């Protein structure tokens, strides 16, 4: 496998969704290809950063308006 083929499968590789044989091919490429290793590491880190970033929670005033709108809608039915 060359770098281009490796790059196509990297999301499935980091999500552990690839067949064992394909994983082994990717890993053998990664052993001797520094740049592809960097792409794997930084791709994986990108995904975990988005996952770890604080979620945007509903601000209190937004929540109050939401519940008010729903109550009004219920009452008008």
């Amino acid at each position, binding site marked *: 496998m060359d*770098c*281009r083929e*490796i*790059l*196509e499968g*990297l*999301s*499935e590789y980091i999500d552990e*969704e690839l067949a064992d044989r394909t994983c082994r091919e990717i890993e053998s490429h990664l052993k001797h*290809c*520094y*740049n*592809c*290793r*960097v*792409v794997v*590491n*930084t*791709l*994986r*880190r*990108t*995904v975990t*950063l*988005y*996952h*770890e*970033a*604080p*979620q*945007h*929670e*509903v*601000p209190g005033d*937004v*929540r109050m*308006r*939401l*519940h008010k*709108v*729903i*109550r009004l*809608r*219920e009452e008008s039915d």
Partner: protein
Amino acid sequence: MKHTVPTDNELIEEIKGGRAEALEALVSRYENKVYSLAYRMMGSREDAEDVLQDTFLNVVRSLDGFRSQASFSTWLYRVATNAALTRLRKKNKREKGEGEFIEEVYSVRDAAHSQSKLVDWSDGPAEKLLNEEAQKIMDEAVNELPEIYRVVFVLRDVEGLPASEVAEVLDLSIPAVKSRLHRARLYLRKRLSDYFTGGIS
């Protein structure tokens, strides 16, 4: 007396029976999830609030059509993503054209082939990688994704839904979900790499 937390479907039955408190409880259970999805999709607090209200008003309007054998949360994600996409289509888009986007995504191929060494920033400390400025860049980068890629990325990697559920929410095949997700991730990786390494990604 036993106090158990009612399931979504039990709350829905109570709502259909006219108990307003059950609706309040269902909305409270999911409002943060919907808001966070809406915020990531829209990129601003005002637009996220509009999507949040649209979503729950649509839920109230169409709850009678909800079949209890389906998963409420999958159905809710569908209503919420539709509300977000409808609002986005009404707005002036900031997102990139798909051609330009694909070109940038695959610049990584040339980078991987290149003689010059890429910079590995992945083991940087979390407090540096998730500082306030970095989070702003992360938000901006998501908003640059064309919406068909953004919605897949947000559901899968931010909300954490499995690919099969993302496919169900968006009426897509699983391979289509995976291919969009991969491109979205490659683009975001590039944007974060440019930021963390000062342009040498």
